[in-house]
């Protein structure tokens, strides 16, 4: 450091930095941490940065959110708005709404921070979703990372909860109607619903308690949980070391990539600023959640196009898809299957996704550690299940915008709902079939390229008059990417130690057969040598 040249020569080895480092080392023994992590290797691939997007947008949320808390008043006490926004002047509203308007219209940069916070929140949940899709389709959830998948999934749920509680805080018309829907949903739960709603809202809907309560959840309880889960999630990443894609020289026993210091730090650190920058750019150009248009909450008005933020859309869509009449009075009580069905279906879907790693390892019987990622095509059944799940989710999600689809594509609302009902029920099967066939076809193509090389487009006439197309063979590095995968066999039915075959075993063997029956084996050396012979 050139700044310390004038200092006495006490700190001989490098001046101020060294002195400071020594001071800290004497008190923290942090050299051990630097030795452990300073040169830790991280593989480099764009899809490995998706989780970082989530982490960084969460940091942006914390920063911008802290700014907002200095001005926001989480109270439903009634005030008369007297701020700068003319079309709401003199309108009666809650302090929550009024203080949010003041942040937007009376504090310089306040609206920017609100928009940064909201865009970052949408990005947070979206990047978690994309990150999860990457993990799923590459099989990165397999042993030893099953628990980290569960933790990540819990983070996804927590992120949605954070989003929903935040969405409801301004107490505007849109979020108020959102809460109204939550109230209706809760009331539909048998036995306890009425009371849960009564306690949650502190009396009858809407009451004057809900904003304060959601605020506590939004800025205290949920962020603490998110932070704890992120810490755990990252701890596991360190313990397991990052997965990597198959490639020449890469094995299950090594990690190839860049050390934390300096390259990874430069790229990941720089990426934080890039994500932050993109969010601020969006916030400076694009309006999000214009509460001044929605006005204060009042149980009587509602706006056309009342929708939740995107991540709650699938639940709202599920509600829309129920046909009329799914509600019965039985044993002197109301059974609201128009509400329970979506809740149950979504609940089952969530549980299946959350525990998928355990389900798959039970089916495959594979208990080895996996650190090399699968290409999606090399696990056709898993990829097909994923495609089915994505179709199902996308159908529910699209249903939440049925009215906008109708107006923008000149369709009828009824037609859109019926079409999406069909997509949600039948679409997953179609998607499963198509995805599986596409995977197998791609595997066959890989196999043929590995064996015979690329078609060069060059046609050559042989001396005998025969025309052939010249294939360009791959070098061994390119070929390795195409052949380095595993092929699995269905589980064999074998009697257990007491000589019996249990029902459980039969079921498992059946599912295993379904999972693995269609498969393409990787190219072997012998085939490769025979392939050479052909040309």
């Amino acid at each position, binding site marked *: 450091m050139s700044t310390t040249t004038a200092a006495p020569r006490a700190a001989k080895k490098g001046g101020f930095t060294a002195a400071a480092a020594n001071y800290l080392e004497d008190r923290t023994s942090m050299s051990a941490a630097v030795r452990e992590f300073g040169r830790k290797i991280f593989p480099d*691939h*764009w*899809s490995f*940065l*998706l989780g970082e*997007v989530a982490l960084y947008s969460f940091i942006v949320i914390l920063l911008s959110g802290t700014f907002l808390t200095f001005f926001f008043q989480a109270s439903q006490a009634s005030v008369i708005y007297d701020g700068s926004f*003319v*079309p*709401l*002047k*003199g*309108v009666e509203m809650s302090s929550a709404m009024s203080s949010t308007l003041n942040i*937007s*219209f009376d504090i310089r940069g306040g*609206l920017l921070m609100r*928009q940064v916070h909201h*865009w970052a929140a*949408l*990005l947070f949940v*979206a*990047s978690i979703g*994309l990150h999860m899709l990457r993990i799923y389709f590459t099989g990165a959830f397999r042993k030893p990372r099953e628990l980290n998948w569960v933790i990540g999934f819990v983070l996804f749920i927590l992120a949605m909860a954070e989003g929903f509680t935040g969405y409801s805080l301004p107490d505007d*018309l*849109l979020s108020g109607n959102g809460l109204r829907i939550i109230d209706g949903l809760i009331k539909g739960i048998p036995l306890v619903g009425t009371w849960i709603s009564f306690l949650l809202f502190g009396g009858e809907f809407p009451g004057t308690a809900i904003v304060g309560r959601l605020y506590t959840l939004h800025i205290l309880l949920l962020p603490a949980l998110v932070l704890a889960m992120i810490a755990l999630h990252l701890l596991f990443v360190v313990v397991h070391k990052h997965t990597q894609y198959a490639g020449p020289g890469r094995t299950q026993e090594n990690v190839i990539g860049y050390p934390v210091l300096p390259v990874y730090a430069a790229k990941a650190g720089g*990426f934080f600023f*890039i994500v932050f920058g*993109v*969010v601020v750019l*969006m916030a*400076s*150009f*694009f*309006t*999000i959640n*214009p509460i001044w*248009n929605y*006005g204060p909450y*009042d149980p*009587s*008005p*509602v*706006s*056309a*196009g*009342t*929708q*939740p*933020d*995107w991540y709650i*859309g699938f639940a709202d869509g599920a509600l829309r898809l129920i046909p009329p009449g799914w509600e019965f009075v039985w044993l002197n009580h109301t059974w609201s299957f128009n509400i329970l069905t979506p809740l149950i279906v979504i609940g089952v879907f969530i549980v299946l996704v959350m525990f998928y790693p355990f389900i798959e390892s039970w089916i495959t019987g594979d208990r080895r550690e996996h650190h090399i990622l699968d290409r999606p095509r090399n696990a056709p059944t898993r990829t097909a299940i994923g495609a089915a799940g994505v179709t199902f989710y996308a159908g529910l999600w699209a249903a*939440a*915008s049925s*009215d*906008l689809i*109708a*107006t923008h594509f*000149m369709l*009828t*609302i*009824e037609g859109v709902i019926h079409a999406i009902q069909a997509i949600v029920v039948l679409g997953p099967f179609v998607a499963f079939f198509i995805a599986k066939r596409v995977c197998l076809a791609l595997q066959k193509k890989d196999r043929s390229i590995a064996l015979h090389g690329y078609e060069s487009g060059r046609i050559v006439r042989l001396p005998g008059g025969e025309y052939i197309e010249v294939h360009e063979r791959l070098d061994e590095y390119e070929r390795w990417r195409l052949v380095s995968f595993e092929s699995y066999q269905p589980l064999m039915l074998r009697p257990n130690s007491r000589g019996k075959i249990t029902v459980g075993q039969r079921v498992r063997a059946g599912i295993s057969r379904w999972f693995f029956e269609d498969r393409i084996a990787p190219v072997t050396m012998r085939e490769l040598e025979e392939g050479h012979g052909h040309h």
Partner: protein
Amino acid sequence: MRAKTHTPGRTVRKTGRRHPLATIALIAIGLGLTGGAYAAFNTSTASAEPAAASQQSVDQGKKIFMSNCATCHGLSASGTANGPSLIGVGAAAVDFQVGTGRMPMAMNGPQAQQKPVQFTGSDISALADYVASLAPGPGIPNASLLDTTQGNAANGGELFRTNCAMCHNVAGAGGALTEGKFAPALSGVSAQHIYEAMVTGPQNMPVFNDSNISPSGKRDIITYLKYIEKNPSPGGFALGDLGPVAEGLFLWIFGLGSIVALTVWITAKSN
């Protein structure tokens, strides 16, 4: 797809209550039923009273009517199977329907669509004068009722949210109705047409007579709509004012899309 197949030349039209012009028929029936009450109501809104029209204009309007409208609405404007009676709908209805291009209808569909206006301003006022001469009805509002400098945007916003936003969206971006019908977007609609729509209830829109929303309340609503039309969203581009769906789509496609493109750049090998 909204009835694209129907050409203007065809005479097959939907009949019955769903016909887009049935609203006018209903108003006409309503007039007959409520009779004196309606007259009382009309006098209470003297400001919207039709101005006395010259006989010349009425005659001119009748000519235009005979050649352009009588096929569906009947030679005496009392309606046919293909179009409702126009007796008593007033000049306001004519000015709105013809002035926004909804009439004459080009094709059948869930509702009459806005399209380029088919007549000149003087033709439209002549037509309005003719229809108004058949029976009393809501007149074209005078300028003071449309003067947004006298309106109160805050009161208008409150009235708009209670009475209009459920169909037209809080920012006037429009919204879906049943069976392919929709409430149109309100930006770019003239103050006069907004006022006329409220008093006449075109198509499936309910009627907001002056005892429901007073003339000054209507002016406040127009003031509010013109305010949000003139002042672009303080937050930047409004993404069509369509709410969370537009925001979510934008975030996924452009927000996350650009970030993913950047991740590809970050991890690409430097040459």
